[in-house]
């Protein structure tokens, strides 16, 4: 047996060789898909390349003329951000409220998504629609009332204010995504677990949550994403102590003119957390963007 298997491939190799040689004759054939993809990725990367390029230049080089790469690379802009507390605390503030928000959203959304995926109850469709409208509500409408509300309850200028405010659109989104993933798990599993004597909380944590682990990951990813990129509410609800990095960036405008290099370096550093998170969820990204509903 092993003998024939060993001979098989070598035979095909021999016979395939002349064919391959024939095919190697240059025949210019443009692959449309590769062209589209390459052009699109080029379009996406160009502005980012320009930002990175600028962050490594000195301000004199930026303003004196256009150069496609830094003539003398400087890391001074990055050093400034990592050593100046008013700069790096912006990143810490942002990450703090993003993480609080993600944990809050997921833990609130899990039981609700289960209810929506498994049961009919009074007003369920209306409730789901109402939740959805909050995902769509313009942040501009809520900026001022949120300012009043969080000032009144003494949470203004804390990460909690921003984290709670972002729940407005992240909790509905998390419910929506988790409901999609949970509906993909057959009900028989719930019933079997109940027959086997699992109490509901034990079933939910020990059996059900591992089954939808990828869904939880995707929902967390989206909560992270939308909380990280939002600025209007984050800026309105903070002043000094909890100021997000995105708001700190406006500091680069000064009497001496724009500090372009520093602005670019700060911009590059806001891209890094997102890039890291994408890397971790890359295998679930496609399904995740379809909100678990393909």
């Amino acid at each position: 047996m092993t003998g024939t298997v060993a001979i098989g491939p070598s035979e095909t190799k021999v016979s395939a060789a002349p064919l391959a040689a024939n095919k190697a004759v240059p025949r210019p054939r443009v692959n449309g898909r590769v062209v589209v993809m390459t052009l699109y990725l080029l379009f996406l990367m160009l502005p980012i390349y320009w930002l990175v390029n600028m962050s490594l230049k000195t301000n004199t080089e930026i303003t004196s003329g256009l150069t496609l790469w830094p003539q003398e690379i400087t890391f001074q802009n990055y050093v400034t951000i990592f050593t100046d507390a008013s700069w790096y605390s912006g990143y810490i503030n942002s990450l703090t409220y993003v993480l609080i928000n993600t944990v809050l959203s997921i833990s609130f959304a899990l039981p609700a998504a289960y209810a929506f995926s498994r049961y009919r109850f009074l007003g369920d469709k209306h409730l789901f629609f109402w939740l959805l409208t909050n995902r769509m509500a313009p942040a501009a409408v809520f900026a001022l009332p949120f300012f009043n509300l969080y000032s009144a309850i003494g949470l203004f200028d804390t990460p909690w204010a921003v984290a709670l405010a972002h729940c407005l659109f992240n909790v509905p989104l998390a419910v929506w995504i988790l409901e999609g993933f949970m509906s993909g798990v057959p009900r028989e599993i719930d019933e079997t677990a109940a027959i086997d004597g699992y109490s509901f909380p034990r079933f939910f944590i020990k059996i059900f949550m591992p089954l939808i682990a990828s869904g939880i990951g995707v929902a967390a990813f989206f909560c992270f994403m939308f909380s990280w990129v939002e600025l209007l509410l984050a800026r309105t609800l903070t002043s000094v102590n909890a100021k997000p990095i995105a708001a700190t960036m406006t500091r680069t405008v000064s009497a001496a003119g724009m500090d372009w290099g520093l602005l670019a370096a700060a911009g590059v550093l806001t891209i890094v957390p997102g890039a890291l998170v994408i890397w971790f969820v890359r295998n679930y990204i496609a399904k995740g963007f379809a909100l678990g509903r393909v």
Partner: protein
Amino acid sequence: MTKTLNNKAWLFVLPVFGIVAFSAILPLMTVVNYSVQDTFGNNQFFWNGVGWFQDLLDPSTQLGERFFDALWRTLLFSAIILMIEVPLGIAVALAMPREGWGVAFCLVLMALPLLIPWNVVGTIWQVFARSDIGLLGWAVNRLGIDYNYTGDPLDAWVTIIIMDVWHWTSLVALLCYAGLKSIPDAYFQAARIDGASRWAVFRTIQLPKMRRVLLIAVLLRFMDSFMIYTEPFVLTGGGPGNATTFLSIDLVKLALGQFDLGKAAAMSLVYNLIIIAICWVFYTIMTNADAQRGRVQE
């Protein structure tokens, strides 16, 4: 899958209801309160009834004209970016590599713009499109086209649209890609045996399979473009003049800039009602599509 009727499920939903109501209903009540009052500062408020709403919905008044201008501008913007992003997103999804390391590579690069804070997106394009220090602005001017997004309304619009295409097309593409990946290979084999053309495969297999995700994509893109604020605010600040003052920008100007709380609140409510109405249309289409799909599967 039929669901059982169980009103105790409300207990599971209650926390979500509580937290969303806290951040949605409470603030909205403040808005309703403001919308029927007028203020001359000093925290003194006067009953104004439906006055603001009458002004707002009557294009002949100053407030009404401003509102409708911003509304048409926003609708035009949403329509344009949908017309560009949806076909482009489908094309990119079809161009995705089928397997190998290229898949993860393309996915990660494509998702990158989606995770950049919105004001940084504005900043990136503000710099990129400048004619003195930006690659794009410099190159376009070198080609002999007079391009200046801070001075010319058309250039400002083009820049904002390209920025939004850059920012969000990947969302449409990723959704479509997810839809395409769920199509079993047997469908394509059957099409090959039948000798179907590339176009026929797209029309009869791929497009119908993408219908559902496309609906989500259009819903998300429409809603998010309809409430766009940060990116154009950073890029153009609503200018030149009022050329790119979309509804959200106008609203924030009115509320936090001029502190015209009554007018701003009335505008917020109308804005919100428009959103809810459009959202309802999409939701109905989506649940109907689901119901149909359920019937087919049974």
